[in-house]
């Protein structure tokens, strides 16, 4: 056989293979949908979610000074866009609870003698506690806090030294209350100190590894049950199963139970490796983490069952899982700061169990938060789980068509 005929025969075979593949692809409608759907979804999600300008960090204020000046400063902080003043609190303990539960990313502490120290020229200090478990947010808080601090100082300094200036406009009255005598002991009239909490060195691994617990579980748990019912269909055991008296809910829960154990083993493994390889601290109770992980695992397994009831082949199930996995990873605050996402993306994020689980896992591991302070997150996950399980049960038919 000549080289030419050999090459042309090979070409025919290659093209025959390509044509066959193309025909199969075109006939697999769901897959064809993914060809269009995945890039669209990915583009939209990445485009909107990737935004490293952190804005609107939920901030609470512990204003012990309760002065007009302190209120003005809080107002100005809120106007920086980095801080979103969502409330005021009464005690340091409450401040810690807000940080622990992730309801606040920053706490502004204004001491009782703030106003007095300013006017006396003793150098007043405002502390901002930043939740550094997320280094990106902590950095943004530090930059904004320090930036505002130096601008405030610049405005206050002339006032302290007696010069008539913009500071007078900030503090139109009150001067009289403290009298004219000032004992200037500090170089700076006012200082804003940002204290990174929980992860003082702002190490990325400390932030990422606990988050990975959630991400890895999302991926593995969902895939396990996503294949569960489809596999019965593909292997033919489905027909045996539906001819038995087993109820739909029993199938669903029976499919989930073993993986709850598997999931907890995975949690342990990731934490162990995180501690060994990345020195990720475990501040809180592992029992609390387990309590938080249980509904999360169940919610991911239930979502997998939804996928499995809808998909016709294991291939489709894998692709559908990916469809859910993608927004989970991008909109949960795992990779990109939740605070930096647009409102609509945050709403979607609030629905996803991973968003809430990340708050739990970071709260417990990095901040030592007790699970009670994260009850709201657990409730949100439970709501999702119940909805998913109900949907999976309803879409699962003990029928062949």
């Amino acid at each position, binding site marked *: 056989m000549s080289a030419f005929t050999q090459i042309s025969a090979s070409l025919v075979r290659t093209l025959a293979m390509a044509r066959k593949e193309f025909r199969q692809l075109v006939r697999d409608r769901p897959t064809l949908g993914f060809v269009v759907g995945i890039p669209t979804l990915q583009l939209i999600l990445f485009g909107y979610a990737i935004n490293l300008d952190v804005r609107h960090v939920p901030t609470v204020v512990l204003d012990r000074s309760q002065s007009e000046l302190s209120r003005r400063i809080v107002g100005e902080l809120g106007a920086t866009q980095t801080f979103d003043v969502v409330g005021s609190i009464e005690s340091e303990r409450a401040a810690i609870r807000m940080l622990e539960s992730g309801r606040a990313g920053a706490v502004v502490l204004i001491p009782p003698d703030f106003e007095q120290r300013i006017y006396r020229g003793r150098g007043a200090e405002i502390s901002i506690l930043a939740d550094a478990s997320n280094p990106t947010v902590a950095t943004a808080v530090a930059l904004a806090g320090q930036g505002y601090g130096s601008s405030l100082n610049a405005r206050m300094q002339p006032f302290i030294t007696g010069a008539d200036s913009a500071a007078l406009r900030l503090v139109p009255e009150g001067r009289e209350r403290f009298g004219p005598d000032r004992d200037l002991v500090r170089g700076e009239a006012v200082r804003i100190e940002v204290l990174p909490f929980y992860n003082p060195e702002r190490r990325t691994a400390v932030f990422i590894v606990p988050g990975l617990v959630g991400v890895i579980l999302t991926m593995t748990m969902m895939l396990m049950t996503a294949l569960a019912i489809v596999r019965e269909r593909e*292997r033919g055991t489905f*027909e045996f199963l539906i001819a038995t008296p087993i109820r739909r809910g029993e199938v669903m829960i029976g499919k989930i139970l073993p993986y709850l154990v598997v999931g907890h083993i995975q949690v342990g493994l990731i934490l162990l490796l995180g501690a060994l390889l990345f020195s990720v601290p475990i501040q809180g109770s592992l029992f609390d983490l387990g309590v938080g992980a249980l509904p999360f695992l169940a919610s991911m397994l239930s979502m997998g069952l939804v996928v499995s009831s809808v998909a016709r082949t294991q291939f489709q199930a894998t692709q559908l899982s990916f469809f859910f996995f993608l927004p989970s990873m991008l909109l949960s605050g795992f990779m990109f700061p939740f605070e930096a996402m647009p409102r609509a993306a945050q709403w979607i994020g609030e629905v996803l169990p991973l968003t809430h689980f990340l708050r739990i896992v970071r709260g417990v591991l990095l901040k030592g938060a007790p699970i009670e302070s994260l009850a709201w997150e657990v409730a949100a996950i439970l709501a999702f789980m119940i909805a998913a399980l109900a949907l999976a049960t309803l879409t699962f038919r*003990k029928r062949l068509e």
Partner: protein
Amino acid sequence: MTPPADGDAIVAARRVSRRFGAVVAVDEVSFTVRRGEIFGCLGPNGSGKSTLMRMLLGLLAPSAGNFEVLGYTVPPDAERLRPSVGYMTQRFSLYADLSVRENLEFASEIFGVSLRGRRARVDRAIEEFGLGSYAGTRAESLSGGWKQRLALATATIHDPELLVLDEPTAGVDPENRRDFWEKLFELANAGRTILVSTHYMDEAARCHRLLVLRDGKRAALDSPGALTGHLAGRALDVESDSPDRAIAALRRFDLVRSTTQLGSTVHVLLHPDAPDASDAADAVGAFLAAEEISAARVRPSSANLEDVFVALLHGEVLDREDAA
């Protein structure tokens, strides 16, 4: 085998139809199955046997009509029927990666065999079906015949009143098929009712009664004997040195409906308008002689189920009035 008495119907199909898109898989089929009988469902591939059985079990919704099975109306009450029915699917549908014993245990638990009796029941099934030496073997490594025994053992683990077997012996060697049918008769003699589909004529012949399906329609329903009885006097056997030439010639002869070669013998089904076989034999012999086909010996023979099938295929009506 004594056929069960009339009247005690435990399954009734009432004008059941099922369409898949434009295709009518089952077309207004009615029949009744009596308690304790082996009721066969015979038809070629695609004649609607599996669809009919799946609908009867409530696994597939009929487009029209319904069933009364063990006193329950199907589809609506299908779930309540489950504990009393054993089903063996056409394709092996047990868990390939579980062992024989594990499959049986799983089925016994799901079918609600009582906790105390469960172990003994599984042991008994293993012994009864001779699965002892394979108890720990994974189902996937069993041969066809053993898989099928396991499937029957599983389908009967909860001692169901009714067994529905969809082509249970497809792809199984003759010896295993014999064993399997012995088992079915044991079950029938113990009072179980068995609904079995097949496309093997020898198996169909062993049923108490046969429902013959053609293109989704009920073509006939009667005992195998009665069905072949309708064709009495219509079959001939022709022995010849050159059966191929004999067949070619016979197909041109207007008294002949169909021919089947069995070695050097050609089995002939005569046309319904033809005279009785004893008379037609001479005519056929003369015809073959005229066609110069040597050493042809023609004698009347008895009709078999294949003849029934051919006759039905040509639209002949062999049905008695029965349940309509």
